[in-house]
């Protein structure tokens, strides 16, 4: 069921004007703090009333300026950054507050069995978020909203929850709107990516397409800008301490033992870590070298150039200085080799 959002609101200094369609899968809203992401999710949940516009879920109008369906009639599951569990109820009572749809299965998937009799006060941050996710799912929502559900957790706690979210998103036929400003969550979860800046949609589309476009790069930390590629774990070379992935551009090597053989994973190739060579190199330490054709060269806001490559089926791009591009005479249509270190492309 498609969610259509077209809302306008003035909140303090921010002029919010958002148009987006949310299909099935995970749609990540990404952008700096104060850009209006949470306001959008609150409007979808019915917790914030926009000044004008329309919100539709399938054929059902949730908001159109005159009517505004109250939150308890919207059937939107909402996982908040601060969990918002009911402190006076046990975990079991929290979970079933909105219904007990798929109780056993959800308890099992989220690993909540041990916690059922406890109260929120005795839970870790990661456990609280798992309960909050379970509680939202058991209300059998039509759509799941998650507002930076991992932001309040430290690193290890994050990895305690993220796989659960990924599994829920992959196995349930439930559109998910996921707000974050952490790149690891984008690369691991997103099907669609909507970049929100200063109350407006700056870019939107399938995550791979958005990340492949250097124009969107300015919204990410420098370390995070780059193409996202989908690979499959081909084999582990235990002796050499590397993992070999199959990708649309040929084998890619990663350090260490990553994933299980046959499992798909996404790899972010940071544009700043990609080096281009006109000829195949030898005697360099970087393990990954793939053949590619230059598709286009674009200017980046920081003065550098983005060299967009087509490596067989994969679009990737490299950030180079104008000096390098001029000295080597790179231009569209040229064959090059893209080289990057195995250690630069950690699994995401």
């Amino acid at each position, binding site marked *: 069921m498609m969610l259509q959002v077209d809302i306008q609101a003035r909140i303090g200094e921010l002029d919010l004007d958002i148009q987006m369609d949310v299909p099935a899968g995970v749609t990540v809203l990404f952008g700096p703090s104060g850009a209006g992401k949470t306001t959008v999710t609150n409007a979808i*949940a*019915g*917790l914030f009333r926009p000044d004008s516009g329309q919100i539709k879920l399938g054929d059902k109008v949730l908001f159109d300026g005159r009517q505004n369906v*109250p*939150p*308890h*009639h*919207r*059937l*939107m*599951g*909402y996982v*908040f950054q*601060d969990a*918002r*569990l*009911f*402190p*006076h109820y046990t975990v079991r009572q929290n979970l079933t*507050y*909105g*219904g007990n749809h798929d109780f056993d299965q959800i308890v099992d998937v989220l690993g909540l069995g041990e916690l059922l009799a406890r*109260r*929120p*006060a005795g839970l870790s941050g990661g456990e609280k978020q798992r309960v909050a996710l379970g*509680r*939202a799912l058991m*209300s059998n929502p039509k759509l799941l909203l998650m507002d930076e559900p991992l932001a309040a957790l430290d690193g290890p706690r994050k990895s305690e929850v993220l796989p659960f979210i990924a599994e829920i998103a992959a196995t349930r036929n439930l559109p998910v709107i996921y707000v974050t400003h952490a790149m690891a969550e984008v690369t691991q979860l997103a099907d669609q990516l909507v970049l929100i800046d200063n109350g407006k949609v700056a870019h939107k589309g399938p995550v791979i397409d958005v990340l492949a476009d250097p124009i969107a790069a300015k919204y990410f930390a420098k370390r995070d800008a780059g193409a996202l590629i989908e690979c499959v774990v081909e084999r582990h070379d235990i002796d050499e301490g590397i993992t070999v992935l199959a990708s649309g551009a040929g084998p890619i090597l990663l350090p260490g033992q990553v994933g299980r053989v046959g499992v798909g994973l996404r790899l972010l190739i940071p544009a700043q870590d990609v080096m281009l060579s006109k000829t195949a190199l030898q005697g360099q330490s970087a393990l990954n070298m793939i053949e590619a054709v230059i598709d286009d060269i674009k200017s980046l806001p920081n003065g550098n150039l983005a060299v967009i490559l087509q490596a067989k089926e994969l679009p990737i791009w490299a950030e180079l200085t104008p000096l390098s591009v001029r000295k080597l005479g790179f231009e569209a249509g040229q064959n090059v080799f893209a080289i990057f270190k195995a250690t630069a492309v950690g699994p995401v």
Partner: protein
Amino acid sequence: MQFDPAFWGIVTLSLRIAATATMIALPLAVAVAWLLARRQFWGHRIVNGLVHLPLVLPPVVTGYLLLIVFGRNGPVGGVLYKLFGVTLAFNWTGAALAAGIMAFPLMVRAIRLGFEAVDSGIEAAAATLGASPRRVFLTVTLPLIAPGILAGTVLGFAKALGEFGATITFVAAIPGQTQTIPSAIYGLLQVPGQEGAVVWLVAVSVVLAMGALIVSEWLATRMTKRLAA
């Protein structure tokens, strides 16, 4: 009169008056506290001022106003008498009314603080889970403000038990009907040689007040532990 029936009559009458006053005032105090804490409306300040008036007016003035309004010839008292045959003035029910009105501002204040301390985000979360505003109030808000309600109830009960000025003006101190512990103590002090009886009434007052405080502290600690997030 140390432990004769008259003594126990005064104590049980006081408890009955205070308990009735508190029980009837409580739901109203919750409603008014909710209104003041959660709603912005025209006349917010006026309602707030009216609620707090008994706290700052001389109690005798409050008692006199009650007499005018709720006396048998008063606008409200007259109607009550004609329709239901109910008389409040110079009756224990009138003592309960006076005690309730005097206790009301203290109850509202305590409960309002409770409302203001509830994270409205938790209520919003309940709404997204499909709970109607009524269900949110009953299952989330009310349990979360329980410590505030408890504090308001104990404060209100203690105030009602000790109410003197408004009560004696509105309902006098008729033995067996409206003579409460404070008015009995005052009456006895006017008669030489009754200090013995006064001591026991004072002792009962202290025990009741301390008992209420200790029980409420204990309950509040338990609730706070349960709610600690």
